């Protein structure tokens, strides 16, 4: 099972993230199931700065 941007656990398909090679259901950037540059939720949110490593446990 894999978790998508929408938080839905789905059976993975043959598609893999072009960055980390994790199996994914569809591209988390363009939503296409046959995207040649498919990227997973974790990789795209990090690449766009939507998530970042927290430097301290309190988030400061």
């Amino acid at each position, binding site marked *: 099972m894999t978790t998508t941007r929408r938080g839905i656990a789905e059976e993975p398909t043959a598609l893999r993230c072009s960055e980390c090679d994790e199996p994914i259901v569809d*591209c*988390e*950037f*363009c*939503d296409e199931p046959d*995207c040649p*540059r498919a990227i997973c939720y974790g990789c795209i949110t990090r*690449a766009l*700065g*939507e998530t970042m490593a927290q430097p301290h446990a309190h988030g400061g």
Partner: protein
Amino acid sequence: MGFSDVSDYVDGKLDWMAAGLPTEGTNAQRPRAGAVARSDSPTCRLDETLGPVQERVRAAGWKACVVVNGERVVLGLLRENELGGDPNQRIEQAMRPGPSTFRPFVLVEELAHYMAEHDLPNAPITTSDGRLVGLITLEDAARVTREAHGPAAKS
């Protein structure tokens, strides 16, 4: 440290920026998706039928329409392919449910890079609670990126 009035924004810096609230520092000068997204991009409701929406979107010169609820929370997206469907179809059947959305603080140049790479003509920008800010087009994102990096751009 000399500050007299200090608040702790519990939801964190990313949530602050995702709401489009002001930031400071050199990085704050770089163009962000929320400033470039078009707030007048067409929207429709789940209970509409595709026909009138097709006409509205075409008249506005768009090739996409965002499906929202009464609070402008994004529920789905109609791209060119979905907009070409049966005019009698209900929007909830025609749309792509739960599309990928991006936060307003994302750098336009980063978004433009991925939009070009994925051949994505537009993308919905939403706050962290899912409310539509607007659609950003690849054309706008590429133009703003060029301007920011052009010879006249200030460092």
